[in-house]
């Protein structure tokens, strides 16, 4: 960090407006004191506007309610929406807090270098946009259009992607691929010729057996899935949960397998063994739709439950019993692909094993297994073709990650470190929208090297997340409750389109991302790709092509289209061509073999923690979405910090008490910036500790989140990269406790 060209700016030199609010000082609908003690306002007395949620990626459709004064009071789910069925999750309900958060970015800010460290100064939109457009044009002219990269998550990314594509760069990455769900997409692609996508096409509604491998549904509030899981519990479906932690869903499962961490693949292979050698697989399905069964049978011959017992600590009886439970439910069984699956660097192969297991059970394309999803086809607003980039992120792979089908964010970070490049394909400028890279990417050191090397960084966000501290220019986006966005076109059982419209004017000087992208485009000579004065023109044009209109959708919020092709499930005896090299479901993957990887998954042992160290396992809490909600007043109210979960046996060894503050130190001697409170609980294995991701914010502008809890990302310095698709395995880090008070000052 010393002598860094791009110092992280952490002090609000200009009084950004980050006034710490006392408890109870936020009221959004004024006090109403009625005589008999009832105090809510009936829905009928309010105005409502359609939206879809932006607090997480599930994008549930809902209604934003405003009172007689036009103030936002609450957000309710849209009953038509299959993502939420009229019920938002706590984050969606608490989305009002995103709007009312006084710590929001309020106006454009421009970095001012100083001898005592850099600061930000307030700027007009005119000045900020002119500066960004000029710098991007300069860098583009000097280093090529491709030298501008975009990191994004969420709706802002769409508009800014158009800008980048119009410029002639396709260096656009979302950490949701290589830091999250990429491995499963490739694993399923290699097996079924189709990736999983979001929302996952899991037919939990009709399942008789749901198998979760480290997936903690209910703590990750993937709304529709959690709802369907609760229905499945009602119907008496069998749930099998594999997790070293007694997760919420483990407590609701018929079988909880408290596996030794990092050994899941052995369990999966043993399950495959049992299904095959006890002849419990779906024989008709396997015969009709699959290829490579004999090779698979031979491959798993020695991978018996007894073999797996010595690796996983799950008894052979438990392995057989659970395999039989799956077979009994077949084909209405789901071995869930999971979501955040970048764990140990062999994650694509673990996902392959999950896919193979599903194929043996005949669950892909079957009721109660996986349905064939369908997405609404929304016509593209007319615009010229994008220019072809001279190079893309693919050219920076240099033979690595041959099966990566989406941009690998870590590769773009590498490509931004000028002195490490062997060619002239160098990233020089970043636009970062809606993703807080310092808490999202592992290997912070590499990230800092990139920041030091970059010529220009612009951040578009609603909140002063840590990433804004590295920006040259910050452009404040308004929240989803204050803007139009592109229509939601997520896939589901039926194709539904959802509209997001503002319920109120943007607060302060914040602006929608579509406006920001267009303003930049107009200034950069790219007007042809932003051929409208207001985004409502685009929406109305698209909706009219679909037989509706903006006006109608402003009332209805959603519309259902006809399924474009195919059926929800395979018909009895239907012939089906899978999009794999063989046209069949591939137990033996030709795609993997051709790329030089094991055509069938092979178990590799991963390191276990040394004496006195514990595996760092991280996860989700239902009321937060990673780090982005950590300052939301409503959601902080539900959970303001994370705790480190420690098994009582481990706590006894260290003399740890409940509520005691400790620092964590990892295998590379990295010590957490902040202490974290200990939670002594039987819900975690003795060889692991658990922490909810997204806390330990170091930016003081986040008045509620600053210094609350611990940031697990900074302890993830051992990154095991998946050679198949570039995913960053993050579960191989081991931590120990530092019980003395280090009194460390927060670093970026």
């Amino acid at each position, binding site marked *: 960090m010393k002598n860094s060209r791009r110092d992280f700016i952490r002090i609000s030199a200009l009084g950004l407006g980050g006034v710490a609010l006392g408890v109870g000082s936020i009221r959004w609908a004024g006090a109403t004191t009625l005589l008999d*003690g009832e105090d809510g306002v009936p829905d009928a007395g309010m105005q409502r506007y359609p939206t879809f949620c932006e607090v997480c990626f599930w994008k549930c459709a809902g209604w934003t309610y405003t009172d007689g004064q036009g103030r936002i009071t609450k957000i309710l789910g849209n009953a038509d929406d299959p993502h939420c069925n009229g019920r938002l999750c706590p984050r969606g309900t608490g989305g009002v807090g995103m709007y009312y958060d006084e710590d929001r970015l309020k106006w454009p800010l421009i970095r001012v270098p100083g001898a005592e460290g850099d600061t930000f100064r307030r700027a007009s939109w005119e000045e900020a946009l002119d500066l960004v457009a000029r710098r991007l044009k300069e860098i583009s002219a000097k280093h090529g259009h491709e030298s501008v990269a975009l990191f994004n998550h969420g709706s802002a990314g769409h508009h800014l992607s158009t800008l980048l594509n119009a410029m002639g760069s396709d260096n656009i990455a979302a950490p949701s691929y290589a830091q999250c769900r990429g491995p499963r997409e490739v694993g399923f692609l290699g097996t079924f010729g189709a990736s999983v996508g979001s929302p996952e096409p899991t037919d939990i509604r009709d399942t008789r057996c749901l198998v979760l491998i480290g997936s903690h549904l209910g703590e990750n509030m993937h709304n529709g899935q959690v709802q369907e899981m609760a229905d499945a*519990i009602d119907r008496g479906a069998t749930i099998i949960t594999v997790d070293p932690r007694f997760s919420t869903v483990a407590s609701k499962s018929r079988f909880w397998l408290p596996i030794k961490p990092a050994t899941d693949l052995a369990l999966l292979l043993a399950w495959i063994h049992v299904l095959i050698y006890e002849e419990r697989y779906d024989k008709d399905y396997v015969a009709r739709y699959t290829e490579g069964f004999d090779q698979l049978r031979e491959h798993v011959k020695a991978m018996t439950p007894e073999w797996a017992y010595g690796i996983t600590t799950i008894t052979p009886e438990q392995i057989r019993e659970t395999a039989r439970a799956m077979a009994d439910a077949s084909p209405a069984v789901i071995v869930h692909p999971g979501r955040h699956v970048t764990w140990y660097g062999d994650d694509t192969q673990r996902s392959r094993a999950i896919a193979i297991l599903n194929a043996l059970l005949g669950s892909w394309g079957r009721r109660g297994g996986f349905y064939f999803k369908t997405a609404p086809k929304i016509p593209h607003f007319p615009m010229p073709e994008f220019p072809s980039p001279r190079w893309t992120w693919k050219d920076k792979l240099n033979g690595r990650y041959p099966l990566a089908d989406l941009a690998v964010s870590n590769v773009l970070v590498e490509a931004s470190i000028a002195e490490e490049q062997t060619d002239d394909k160098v990233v020089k400028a970043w636009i970062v929208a809606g993703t807080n890279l310092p808490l999202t990417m592992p290997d912070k050191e590499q990230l800092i090297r990139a920041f030091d090397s970059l010529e220009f960084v612009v951040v578009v966000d609603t909140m002063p997340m840590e990433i804004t501290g590295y920006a040259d220019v910050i452009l404040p986006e308004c929240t989803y409750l204050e803007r139009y966005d592109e229509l939601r076109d997520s896939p589901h059982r039926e194709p539904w389109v959802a509209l997001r419209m503002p319920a109120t004017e943007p607060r302060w000087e914040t602006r929608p991302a579509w406006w920001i992208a267009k303003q930049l485009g107009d200034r950069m000579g790219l007007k042809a790709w932003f051929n409208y004065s207001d985004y409502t023109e685009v929406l109305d044009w698209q909706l009219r092509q679909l037989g509706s209109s903006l006006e109608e959708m402003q009332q209805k919020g959603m519309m259902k289209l006809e399924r474009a092709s195919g059926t929800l499930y395979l018909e009895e005896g239907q012939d089906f061509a899978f999009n794999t090299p063989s046209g069949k479901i591939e137990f033996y993957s030709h795609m993997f073999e051709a790329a030089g990887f094991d055509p069938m998954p092979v178990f590799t042992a991963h390191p276990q923690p040394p004496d006195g160290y514990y595996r760092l396992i991280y996860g989700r809490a239902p009321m937060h979405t990673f780090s982005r909600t950590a300052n939301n007043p409503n959601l902080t109210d539900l959970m303001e910090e994370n705790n480190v979960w420690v098994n009582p046996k481990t706590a006894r060894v260290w003399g740890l008490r409940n509520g005691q503050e400790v620092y964590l130190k990892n295998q590379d001697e990295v010590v957490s910036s902040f202490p974290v409170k200990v939670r002594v609980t039987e819900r975690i294995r003795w060889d692991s500790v658990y922490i909810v991701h997204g806390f330990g914010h170091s930016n003081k502008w986040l008045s509620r989140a600053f210094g609350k809890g611990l940031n697990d990302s900074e302890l993830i310095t051992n990154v095991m990269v998946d050679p198949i698709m570039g995913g960053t395995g993050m579960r191989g880090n081991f931590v120990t406790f530092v019980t003395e008070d280090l009194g460390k000052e927060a670093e970026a």
Partner: protein
Amino acid sequence: MRYAMAIDTRKCVGCSDCVVACQTENNVPVGYCRDWITETVDGTYPHVELELRSERCNHCDNAPCVRCCPTGASHIVEGGVVLVTHNECIGCGACIQSCPYDARYSHPEGYVDKCTFCIHRVREGQKPACVEVCPTKCMYFGDLDDPNSEISVALRNRKFKDLAPEAGTKPQIFYLI
């Protein structure tokens, strides 16, 4: 008519949606709540049990908070719903002390506040906000005197318990186990 609520502990994931939905529905200031989640862990790894409960005012049949209220602000309306009239409440806090469920709090504006069963919604034929929002549909609300109400059906078909029965308050929140 007797309004009551049943909460299915087998389905509740403790997400706290009920808490935030109550806050936004009823103008409960941030930092306060009328309902909350309780987590109980039993056993030793790997033989562990977990119970998650959404808790709130029990709208007791024998409500100590109503009996001890010196001004009559705490009172009972139709369906046995216990309410507090804000401008009759002097904020003495006797009710807070008398409640075995810790269901009441002092509102920053000086009166004592708690769950109303969203009576303003119930009177309009809707369910309480917490019931309506719950992603797991683990909450049942209705009239115990109606044998066909969803709560009567739930209590007929499942084992259930209530909290602090030793307090003798005859609580009207039931937990399906």
